[in-house]
């Protein structure tokens, strides 16, 4: 699903945000990207949905060579994946339904597709009963579920989440992570960048740890802290 070969990202000011990363993520995987702030988690995600272009290296997402993607073809890539952010990025003057439908409408979808897909994803995230409400009438967890519904309405095979629980309390955090787990069970590849220790430790999934733009460890069923229980703790 995702393949990175020798990928580096150097900002104009000379900072190496990503420094020679090789990474393979298979179809249907669930992967945490961890590491403290400024360590390249968000930059890595941005490279995957072509918000940024790598300075060097090859990136393939769902068979698309992202590093060589022409600008006119970016929409094609974006329709293959969904992105979820810490701040939800909902439109405050649109209802839950409209926010989700918007993502379909702007890709030129037919009315009947909108009427079929929107209830499907609202059901999936458990917000069918709040479809007519506005974002500011919802809890943070509900807003994030709306954002997840919007990310999924195009039926993407890949869901990228950048600190999805960063603004949420523990109860809502659990709720969102359970939802992401269920989405993953349906076959969607999920990549979550987070520095929430509890989330990572509870889920026990693959953990890719970044430090200074490099991958320092990559464990199946990992913990937030390296070698937890062996007194070998990276400060986070």
């Amino acid at each position, binding site marked *: 699903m995702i393949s990175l070969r020798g990928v580096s990202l150097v900002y104009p000011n000379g900072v190496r945000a990503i420094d020679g990363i090789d990474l393979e993520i298979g179809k249907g995987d669930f992967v945490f990207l961890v590491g403290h702030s400024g360590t390249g988690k968000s930059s890595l995600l941005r490279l995957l*949905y072509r*918000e940024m272009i790598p300075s060097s290296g090859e990136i393939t997402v769902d068979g698309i060579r992202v590093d060589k993607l022409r*600008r*006119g073809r*970016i*929409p*094609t*890539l*974006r*329709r293959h994946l*969904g*992105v979820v952010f810490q701040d939800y*990025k909902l*439109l405050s003057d649109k209802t839950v339904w409209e926010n989700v439908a*918007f*993502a379909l*409408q*702007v*890709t*030129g979808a*037919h*009315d009947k597709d*909108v009427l079929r897909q929107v209830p499907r994803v609202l059901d999936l995230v458990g917000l069918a009963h709040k479809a007519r409400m506005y974002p500011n009438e919802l809890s943070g967890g509900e807003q994030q579920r709306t954002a997840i519904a*919007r*990310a999924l309405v*195009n039926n993407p095979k890949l869901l990228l989440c950048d600190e999805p629980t960063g603004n949420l309390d523990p109860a809502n955090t659990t709720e969102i992570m359970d939802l992401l787990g269920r989405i993953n069970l349906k076959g969607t590849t999920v990549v979550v960048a987070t520095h929430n220790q509890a989330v990572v430790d509870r889920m026990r999934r693959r953990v890719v740890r970044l430090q200074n733009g490099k991958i320092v460890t990559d464990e199946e069923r990992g913990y937030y802290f390296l070698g937890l229980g062996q007194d070998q703790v990276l400060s986070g």
Partner: protein
Amino acid sequence: MDWGKIKFFLGEVFRNFTRNAGMQATAIGTVAVTIVLLGVFLYVRASIAHLGNDVFSQITISTYMKSDATSSQISAVRTALAKDLRVASAQYIPKKQGLKELRDRMKGQIDASLLTENPLPDKFRVSVRDPNEVPAVAASIRKLPGVDTVEYGRDVVQRLLQLANVARRVGIALIVISILVAGIIISNTIRLTVYARRREISIMQLVGATNMYIRMPFICEGLIDGVLGALLAIAVLAVARASLVPKVAVALPWLQMNVVQVDLSSLILQLLAVGAAVGVVASWISVGRYLRT
């Protein structure tokens, strides 16, 4: 395109348009001013074209024969002029008639009886079809045998041509400047809308809307600004024409306004096209600048 899509699209355009009512009014007003200027210029130019033709058609070449020119030389000149396709008409004025004309013209200013003999040469008054051909025709007449001098008011012709040129250039400069100003103001208006909707645009980009799709509502907004401005200008021009033209015709009868035939429907179409083009180009540029990441 099904109805749902069209409805969604029009809704987006309408929301954009009503978001910055003040800015939209400014943009429309600026376009209107520009188009009024352009309309006046085009209208006056069409009128002047007539007027200019009248003035230039009055330019004649005075061909003076030598005092010792033989009658066969005079008739040779007459034949040459008659054969020349560039010549519209040639009138022979023998010196006797010339003196009579001079006396009539100078009546009361000088005492013509002081003239004891006729100082005037025989002459031809030649008018030319195309004013631009006047110098060439004059040059070829000068070469004919028996011809002494040729005069056609070179200075007057050149000055008229220069004046017409300067007037045209000033007009074009004014219009270019005002079109630029209108474009910049529309572009700024659209940029405000783009800025107000930057969250929506970034979400559109995120979920895979094409740049063309994102652009369309803004292009439409610019188009509406341009067309409404042009319509406003056309209304102003129509009122101005209805109330001013009769007065001008009375005040300046020599302008012969009633003779002027300006093709109004094509003028209106031209103005609408300019308004629409300014709106589309200006919004295209300002959205394009934003979408380039």
